[in-house]
């Protein structure tokens, strides 16, 4: 049994504190200690992207980060995409395009797609497919997902003008 360490970190703009064993991955800390169950476990080895979050602005798999490493860092999960209860355009477009079936991969896709659009507001289809290569979906296939991201980019760019 590993010793527990107190971790203080910012999650979706709120300061949260939790005690976690040193060998606990951040994915489990977020789900079981912070109560954010939007972050999903798919493979647990960094291949599927279902547990994607941003850590200090950098897209990462939370299954490949230890909870203790998050001390003093800034985390955004899928729950942080909504603003004042309004869905983020990406979330709305995923619904509009039926870009999900079982939904386990969806939070990871949304967080990864947001990281892409923050960095590159006008990605080509190829760029979208490369940027989302670390997110696996075993239900819908990727076409609807790519189209939802393209539609979101369009809407976000319109809003910016």
């Amino acid at each position, binding site marked *: 049994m590993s010793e527990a360490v107190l971790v203080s970190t910012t999650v979706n703009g709120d300061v949260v504190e939790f005690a976690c064993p*040193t*060998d606990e991955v951040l994915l489990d800390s977020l789900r079981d200690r912070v109560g954010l169950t939007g972050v999903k476990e798919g493979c647990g080895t*960094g291949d599927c992207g279902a547990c994607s979050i941003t850590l200090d602005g950098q897209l*990462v*798999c939370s299954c*490949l*980060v230890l909870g203790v490493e998050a001390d003093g860092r800034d985390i955004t999960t899928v729950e942080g995409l909504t603003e004042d209860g309004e869905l983020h355009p990406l979330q709305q477009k995923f619904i509009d395009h039926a870009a999900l079936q079982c939904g386990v991969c969806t939070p990871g896709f949304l967080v*990864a797609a947001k990281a892409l659009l923050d960095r590159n507001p006008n990605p080509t289809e190829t760029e979208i497919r490369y940027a989302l*290569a670390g997110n696996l979906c075993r239900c819908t296939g990727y076409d609807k997902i790519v189209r939802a991201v393209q539609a979101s980019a369009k809407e976000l760019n319109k809003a910016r003008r």
Partner: protein
Amino acid sequence: MRYESPATTKEAVALLSKEKGPAFVIAGGTDLLVRMKSGLVEPALLVDVKRIPAMTTIKVMQTGFRVGAAVSGAELGAHKALGKAWPGVVEATNLIGSDQIQGRCTMVGNLCNASPAADSVPALIAAGAKAAIVGKQGRRTAAVEKIITGPGSTSLAKGEVIEALTLPKSSRRTGDAYLRFTPRTEMDIAVVGVGISMTLERGIIKKARVCLGAVAPTPILVPAAADTIIGTKLDDAALAALAAACSDACDPIDDKRGTAAYRIRVAGVLARRVATIAFQRAGGAA
């Protein structure tokens, strides 16, 4: 398991040296956490090096670049001056895993994990990168090709850590490139990887370094392959000799990703392509 996140390399070395049980450095953790999860390693101590300023920064110096051991692939890819000077090294590192993995993975982690198929390593060796190593006895420097001694093993002594990698100064007449062959375009492991750097003088290759990955127990620097293109303008005869020398140097295994015979052939094909890119980047006339 004890977790420590020291503020200096010296403290990190002291912690690692004192620990009696299995002790590991964690930078990106993209290999280590997978190995921990599968039970391959059971650390008694993890030393997180991401709070050490010397390890988290890229420094531009008179003599070249100093890339901290904890600098992620994403940070490396965003560094304009480094990408301009050593595009092959940056591209090789950015091939590792997905964007999510890029957010954490490091070149030094790729090196110390010591996989024969590590993507960044042939590019680093071709570029003449050196490792700045800190241990209990002090500091030492070693060429990157001296670090990996076999699959999963390195020449680092207990308690020694790589603090940073240094890349020499590049000029307009220096070009480097790295390509790998994988069945898929993304999220795959190299069947063969080739890194080449070269410097031209009046359009002729003056210096070159050729390094092959995934075709031997370690990445291999192949001076005999470099010799085939030095003194040439990379004409067809030089490219053919380069391909033959690269294929000759391979000592691969058969595995699920490719047969030995296939790897030997692909090494030559890739070497031609990589040399052509590096030559163009060095300002050579096609």
